[in-house]
């Protein structure tokens, strides 16, 4: 079995993996990073979205062997070491942008690079950015509001 070395949330891991092991299963069951959720395993729901080299990807559509030598960020890597919520997380709480919370990690990870590239998005931009993530609870209304609030939080903290 191949041996892989990856950096996840700034921590290095070395593991032996079967080639067919999905990245989502690797993160969850080999590394114990269960914040990344799995909803469809065919790349539609977006719950398993993580950052690979800073870009959002579906972890159910990659093999663990493929990330050998690469750098990943999962939802566990967003909050501060003391548990302080990332501004996007804080915005989701304030705007009631989650209900069951199952799709939420994927949505947060989608928004991280989006808001990096679009610091002041309009509603349409946000809805397009979210269109690859399914949520069955919120009707997206408050997710959109949370994304907008997060953008405000992050731009105001930068200018401050």
């Amino acid at each position, binding site marked *: 079995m*191949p041996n892989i070395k990856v950096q996840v949330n700034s921590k290095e891991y070395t593991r032996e993996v*079967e*080639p*067919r092991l*999905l990245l989502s*299963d690797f993160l969850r069951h080999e590394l114990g990073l269960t914040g990344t959720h799995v909803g469809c*395993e*065919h*790349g539609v729901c*977006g719950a398993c*979205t993580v950052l*690979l080299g800073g*870009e*959002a*990807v*579906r972890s*159910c*559509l*990659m*093999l663990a*062997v*493929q990330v050998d030598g690469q750098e990943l960020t999962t939802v566990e890597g967003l909050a501060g070491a003391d548990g302080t919520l990332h501004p996007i997380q804080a915005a989701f709480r304030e705007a009631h942008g989650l209900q069951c919370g199952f799709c939420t990690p994927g949505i947060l990870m*989608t928004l991280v690079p*989006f808001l990096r590239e679009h610091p002041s998005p309009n509603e349409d931009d946000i809805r*397009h*950015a979210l*269109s*690859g993530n399914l949520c069955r609870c919120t009707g997206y209304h408050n997710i959109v509001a949370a994304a907008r609030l997060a953008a405000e939080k992050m731009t105001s903290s930068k200018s401050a």
Partner: protein
Amino acid sequence: MKPPPFEYHVADSVDQALSLLADYGDEAKPLAGGQSLIPLLNFRLARPAALIDLNHIDALQGITRAPDGGIRVAAMTRQRALERNALVRQFAPLVVETMPHVAHPQIRNRGTVGGSLAHAEPAAELPAVMITLGARLHLRSKRTERWLTADEFFTGLFATALQTGELLTTVEIPAVPERTGYAFEEVARRHGDFALLGVAASVTVDETGVCRDARITLVNPGAGAERMQRAASSLVGRPIDDAAARAAGEIAAADLTATGDVHASPAYRRQLARVLTRRTLLRAYDRGRASR
């Protein structure tokens, strides 16, 4: 929904990939972006003995100017890189207009140009775009290499001219003739879904506004990307007004090979061909007249 077992090889060069493909024959699948292949594995609808990972081959990355003025897109170029590339914006604006319809950013971050073309999903947008642009595709095997036009490359539903052991390495998009306008439109159930039907059109006009060349390609009429030759020829030699575009739409609606599925009846596909052909032609024509 876990993949069946397979062997996994990382190819560091095109030659190594071709050599592995030659060794395995039909038993191996090249792994490009994996955004179509891995779902098939997860559903156990594909069971290759081996995957040959092309993601580490530098020679398969990047977009450059082609000698004759067009652009060359290496097969493993990510779709996201394609849509953001300055050369593509300049020389193949039809691609840029189309890309937002291709799935979602998370998918385009991994999905590759070559992967999408080689998979030849009938509802995918890129094959029709490449046909419309008159792209040429470079295919290599351990012993052979050849260039095919996109028309020759796509042979049907999930079917291409790729032979066992052959790999698509480069797509060359030729330079756009002067006064050429383009347009892409599709109807999908949701944004980012595969098209129920789409139309890629390009129109070249002369200085008086007479159409000199038109190309119309349908996405997902039923049997893979399909060129509407008769509809296109009906436009040559005249300005494209609403009536001409409408008439071309009628011809397209009559000519396409429409099939039905859970999302669209054949009649509805014909209607979309009728409407979207008209709309894209008018837009392409206006753009053609406005350019230079």
